[in-house]
Structures are given as C-alpha cells and as structure tokens.
C-alpha cells in the first residue's frame, strides 16, 4: 500500500493534442479515489500515466517515496483492471489469476495457495478450471478483480471496470468492489464517466474536464459545493436546474430578476457572498437541484411555473415545470448535460421560447396535472450562483 502523488502532471500527444494539464493530486494510503468526467476529459490518460502505460510530458508521479516517471509498468507494483477485463481467452481462470504471480517467478505452491485464496474471496473457486468465455459478465469482472488482488499490489488502478455490465449487475458489483477495497485497504484509483458510480464508490472524487482537474473532494462536498458550473451540471441526476437572473440591490439585500418574476435572496445567502455586490445590474447563473425545489401553498411560493410533464418513479415523482427565464447556455453546461445518463434533458434547457424547464423532485402522491400553474419554493441555503463569464461559483 502506498500514497500516489501527481505533481504538475501534463500529457501532450505527438500530434500536439493536450490530454492532461497541470494535474496536482495526492491520493492517500488506502484511499478510494475516483476520477470522473465526460468522454475525452483526460481521466483515463491520467490513470494510464500512473500505470506507466503512457509517458508523461510534464511533472512527476510518485508512488510512495519513489518517483516513477521513467519506471516500467511492471516495476511499479500496481494492478490494473481494464474496461473489457483483458482476460486471456486461451487460459483457464486459474491461469488468468496466476499470471501476475508466474510473471514474477513465484513458487508453484505459493501461486496455488494465493490463487485459491483470491478465488475464495471472490466466490470463484468452482470456476477455476473454466475458460473466461464460459463465465457471465459479472463473473469475468470478478476474475479481473482476482487477478488484481492476488499479487497484493501497492495500488489498484481501475479503468471503467463496470461499464460492460448491465444496470442491475453494475449496482451489485459497485458495492462488491467498494467493500473489497475497504476490506483490503489498498489504495485505489478508479476511473468512470458515471457520476453515480463516482458518488457511491469514492471516498474522494476528482472531476475532470478537457484535461483539467475541476474539483476534488469528498463526493457529498463536491455535490453540495460545486466549484464551477461544469461540476454543478455534471454531478447529480437529474442534473441541476440552471437559469439566468439579473442581480438587483433591494435595500439591505439583493433580488434575482427573472423575466417576469423576482426571487428575493434571504439574508443568510447574501451574508456569505459579499462579492455579490460586484454583480449588481449583471446576470448570474442560478443553479438549484431538483430536491431543493418544493411545491408549496399559494402563499409561500417564491416562483410560479407551468407544469409540462410529470414522471412518477415510484418512490418519487419528477415534475417538469416551465418558468419564463433565460437558459444558461455555457459550453460547460451543455457538455455536462451531453455526457449525463438517464436525464435526457439538458439542465436549463428551454421549454418553449424564452422559457426554462425546471425539474422538481417531489412526493409521488401529490396530484399534479400538465398545464397547472404551481407555486414553487426554493431552498435558498442550497442555492448556487455562478459568474456566467468565468463559470466559477460565487461562494464568497
């Protein structure tokens, strides 16, 4: 087990394409770190650089106290699980799991006992004589895990290991991998484009976009305090609601002016954000998660919207409601929305002309019909404001 440190790491491919820029990250001993981001964000490249399968152009990568920039992948003492598992089809499951031990010229008895121990841990004992093609997707995934754990490496590197599984199996394997990692306590770097996977598995997540680390931290922290509009849009399903509003001063407080409605900011919101003064008279991006909007009585509603669709999902219902406002059309939001799974709506996308569709997560027993005009309250302590020019969150 070891720490992994990336210091100012960059990667430029021979054609001049920059895959990763100035990546700084310290992964603690025994930590489960998830790199998450849309396709082409550089997360897999970053992982492959740690593995030694890609040369790095700038910076240093250290495993433990050792700088491994020029060290051969086989000498870094890491184990990697690939997206398609990379099980050798001509070898039995036993031989597959034993391969890393044989490559290290370990004694036969030791190989046998270690393989049997790993197989026992993963419930693969009865399949050891079989060939990979005779196993199901989940079992193959376990074999790949077995090959990784059998060597007791310094760290695990996992490149989207669940993406080839169906949804149900993915959920099951998600917790199996997380539990196994906890049990073994081996430092793990896990790459995924699925933010649900990242949120549920990682002790810390690192959100990447276009080769740049956007934010890192515990999943709940990233979810609750996104550093910029991309992270806010990327993390969460359904995605965060976005719309533009003009900031106006009103006595000691501020108001957010939509097209035909006004949202008065509560003192608590304003107090924490003195820099809001600089935005008076200008438009900001307003973000609010579906669970932080609520359908309320006529008297207490701060916004009003017209229902365009209702999806009842059993335990909850998603109400799609249009308000007159300008959509946030930043590249970051569009890119995050394009890479989202499940939520087919681009966050902040317009319903009709000049309208924005908000998603409200609510109780499925409420009787709401399409066309109703409904009062909505916004949980202001969970309101997110963004500088539209830079995309950065206004937290101070």
């Amino acid at each position, binding site marked *: 087990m070891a720490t992994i440190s990336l210091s100012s790491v960059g990667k430029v491919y021979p054609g001049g394409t920059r895959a990763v820029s100035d990546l700084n990250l310290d992964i603690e001993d025994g930590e489960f770190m998830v790199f998450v981001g849309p396709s082409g964000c550089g997360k897999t490249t970053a992982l492959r650089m740690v*593995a*030694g*399968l890609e040369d790095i152009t700038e910076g240093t990568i250290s495993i433990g106290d050792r700088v491994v920039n020029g060290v*051969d*992948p*086989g*000498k*870094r003492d*890491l*184990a*990697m699980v*690939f*997206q*398609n598992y*990379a099980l*050798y*089809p*001509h070898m039995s499951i036993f031989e597959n799991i034993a*391969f*890393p031990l044989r*490559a*290290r010229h370990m004694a036969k008895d030791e190989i046998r006992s270690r393989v049997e121990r790993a197989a026992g841990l993963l419930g693969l004992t009865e399949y050891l004589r079989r060939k990979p093609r005779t196993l199901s997707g989940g079992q193959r995934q376990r074999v790949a895990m077995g*090959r990784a754990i059998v*060597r007791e490496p310094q760290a695990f*590197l996992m490149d989207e290991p669940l993406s080839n599984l169906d949804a149900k199996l993915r959920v099951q394997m998600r917790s199996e991998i997380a539990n196994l990692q906890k049990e073994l306590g081996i430092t793990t770097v896990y790459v995924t484009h699925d933010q649900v996977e990242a949120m549920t598995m990682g002790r810390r997540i690192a959100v990447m976009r276009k080769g740049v680390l956007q934010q890192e931290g515990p999943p709940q922290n990233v979810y609750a305090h996104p550093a910029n509009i991309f992270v806010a849009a990327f993390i969460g399903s359904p995605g965060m609601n976005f719309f533009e509003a003009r900031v106006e001063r009103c006595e000691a407080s501020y108001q957010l002016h939509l097209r035909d409605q006004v949202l008065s900011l509560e003192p608590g919101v304003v107090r924490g954000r003195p820099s809001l003064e600089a935005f008076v008279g200008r438009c900001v991006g307003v973000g609010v998660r579906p669970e932080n909007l609520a359908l309320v009585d006529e008297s207490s509603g701060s916004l009003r919207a017209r229902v365009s669709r209702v999806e009842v999902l059993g335990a909850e219902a998603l109400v799609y409601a249009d308000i007159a406002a300008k959509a946030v059309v930043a590249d970051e939001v569009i890119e995050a929305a394009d890479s989202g799974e499940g939520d087919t709506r681009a966050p902040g996308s317009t319903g009709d002309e000049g309208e924005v569709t908000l998603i409200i997560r609510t109780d499925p027993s409420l009787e709401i019909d399409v066309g109703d005009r409904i009062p909505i309250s916004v949980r202001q302590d969970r309101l997110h404001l963004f500088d539209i020019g830079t995309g950065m969150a206004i937290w101070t």
Partner: protein
Amino acid sequence: MNKRYTWRTFGHELVMLVLAAGFCLPLYILISVALKPNDQLFTKPWEFPAQPDWGNFSEAWGERTDPTLTQSLLSSAIITISAVVILIVTGSLCSYVLARRPGRLSNLLYVLFLLGIIVPFQLCIVPLYVGFRTAGITGTYLSMIILWVGVFMPLTVFLYTGFVRQLPRDYEESARVDGAGIFRIFFRVVFPLLRPVTGTVAIMTGLFIWNDFFASLVFLGGTQNATIPVAIYSFVGEYLTKWNLVFAVVIIALAPLVIFFVLAQKQMIRGFAGGIRG
C-alpha cells in the same frame, strides 16, 4: 412451400447443389480411377468400378521408384513442416513489431513486405539457382526451406500484421502491468491469440509448398530429396502410363493435407474472417 422456404430459396439451393457437384466431379474421377482395374480404365471411364481394386494402392506403394514414395513423402513433410514453422515463428514476431511499433520505419518495412507479395517467384528461379549452387546447397532440404520461407514471408507478414492490428492492446498492457517481459507477453499472451491467423498461414503456405511441382523439380529433380509431386511425375511414362496407379499415389499424397485441413479448418475460417474485418 411455407413462407420461409420459398421457391426462390429452393432455386438458390439447387444452383448451389449443382455447383457443389461440379466441384466434386474431379474428386469422383480421382477416386474411381484409383480404384479401377487396368482393363476398365479406358473401357468404362465414367463408371465407378463394381469391384474396387484396393490393390492399386499397395502396388503403387511398392513400385520401384527412385527415390521411393516413402522417401518422397518424408522429404515433402520435412520441407513443408520446417518452412511453415519458420514462417510462423519469424513472421508472427516480425508482424508484432511492425503492427505495434508506430513510425515511418515500420510503415516502410511493411510496404516492402507487401511489394514482395506481387513479385512472381518464378522470376527469381534462375538467380536463386545460381545462388544456391554457389552456396553448395542445391538439391538439399535447406535450399527448399530457404526458398519457401522467402517466397511466403511477405504473405505471412501481411496476414499476421492485419490480425495483430485488430487485437486489443489491453491484453498486452495488462500483462505489462502484471510484470511480464516482452517475450513472455508475446509467447504466452499474444501468440496464442493469433491462433486463427496461424491456422490460415499454415494452411495457405503448407498447401502450396506440399503441392509445388515446379520449384521442386528445378531444385530437387533427380536427387534423393525429391518431393511427392516430383515422385508422382515419375509414374507418368513416355510410352505407358498406369493412370490408376498415378491416381492412387495422388490420393496417398493428398491424405496428410486433408487430415490437416479437417483439423484446422475452424481456425482457418476465423483467420480469414478476422482478416476481412480489418
């Protein structure tokens, strides 16, 4: 005729059956002539003999030729197996490097190999003969092995390179991370994955080398190392040819190939299919 099995389908099947029968005709003639007694050879050329004369095989086998049929079969086997094994081992290694090492040099070498495919080897027979004679290896197995390895290396490299290029790198990368060296990666991981194309290479080159008459006659004619096609030719006399014995020998010569094809056909088809996808 139901909805699935239409007259059109029946028509297609009929055409295919007639074509298949056409392909089988030479085989029928080969077998029927090989089993005919001498007196029926020209009197009943198309009929299958009522009483097959299995003695033709033993008679042909016992015929006093120089070299003997056993010797010729052995020569054919030595030359074919040696050339095919060398082609597979060196060709696959060479292709692996060409396919996995990016750069101009690799591309240039690959193009040079491709050019080798289009040069008819018959053009090189005279210089080769002179070269072998100078080296003192004319009439030996070694000369034929060198010849065939040279002739088929471009095709072998072409087939292997196409296959390796489609092979996901994950297998090799996984092995690299697991600490395997380059030779372990190639021989334990990559080479077994090349089995389909290895089958293709073995059959395509092995078939040609086994059946070759021209080069064997030029380089080995008149020596004790003559291969089976040259030996069969010795059954064709200037004034008298016992065609039933000739055909019996042809069947004997075919047998090893047929057995090999039956064993390796699955691999060969996969190899071809793999090549087409690339």
